[in-house]
């Protein structure tokens, strides 16, 4: 059973595997919402939904129990929603917003993760980012890194002769 391939005749442009090397060559799409980006948008969407639902319950019902933790839950929810929409919309504005959202997310998960371990008293109730997101299989910790990587990878480059020497064809897997 060799090479079942795509029945619809999408031979060479088959999208690269998520973690794999850049097999697509120079002609690859540079949009945040295409290819692997669709997967990323879906995961962000799930987290936006989950974090919003969770934060809504926490903030509306038992705000007094842990205001700091629940405020951060709300912040996380907003960040995920913004990141999802920005990644899905793409474009210059979308990209800028996505950078900001993913940046906040990265700082948030690292800070809250560290604080929740160092000073559990301050976080009597869990948030998405507590313990570096261990309640969610550490996906909240990985997500911003993947987001940064993806935004970097899909960054727009000036059409002709960019001084930035990026050679998509070679160096398959030399990221440290």
């Amino acid at each position: 059973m060799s090479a079942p391939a795509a029945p619809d005749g999408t031979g060479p442009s088959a999208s690269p595997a998520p973690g794999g090397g850049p097999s697509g060559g120079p002609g690859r799409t540079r949009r945040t919402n295409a290819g692997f980006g669709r997967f990323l948008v879906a995961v962000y969407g799930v987290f936006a939904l989950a974090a919003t639902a969770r934060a809504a319950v926490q903030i509306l019902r038992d705000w007094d129990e842990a205001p700091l933790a629940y405020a951060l839950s709300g912040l996380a929810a907003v960040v995920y929603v913004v990141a999802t929409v920005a990644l899905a919309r793409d474009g210059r504005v979308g990209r800028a917003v996505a950078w900001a959202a993913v940046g906040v997310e990265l700082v948030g998960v690292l800070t809250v993760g560290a604080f929740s371990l160092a000073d559990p008293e301050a976080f009597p109730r869990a948030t998405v980012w507590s313990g570096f997101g261990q309640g969610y299989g550490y996906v909240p910790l990985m997500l911003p890194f993947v987001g940064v990587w993806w935004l970097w990878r899909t960054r727009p480059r000036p059409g002709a002769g960019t001084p930035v020497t990026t050679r998509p064809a070679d160096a398959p897997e030399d990221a440290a």
Partner: protein
Amino acid sequence: MVLPLVLLVVAACAVLAGWALVFVVRDRAVILRQLWGAAVIEALVLVQAVVLGVLGATGTAPSDPVLLWGYLVTTLVILPVAALWAFAERSRWSSVVLVVAALTVAFLEVRMWQIWNA
């Protein structure tokens, strides 16, 4: 909450996720049969909602009903979104999204079971 129903949903999600994963590997988009599978899971979750409603009405309420219902509503949203995605995106990535959706529903089921027994 009824354990057999939870297990059934989780198992069905695992099957659907596996099926969709095969499609990812083969670089194929979601097909209608898979969406029927998703519809069956959705129906099972709806049955769960009814069961929870009846249990709640007859006095066997969970310790944290708001949280539980929040999870239930979230669970109900996910597969329809993945289905819409499958129609909009006719590439392998719709299969990836279906894998994510099925695993998420399974995860939420487990969480609901934990909340119910909390």
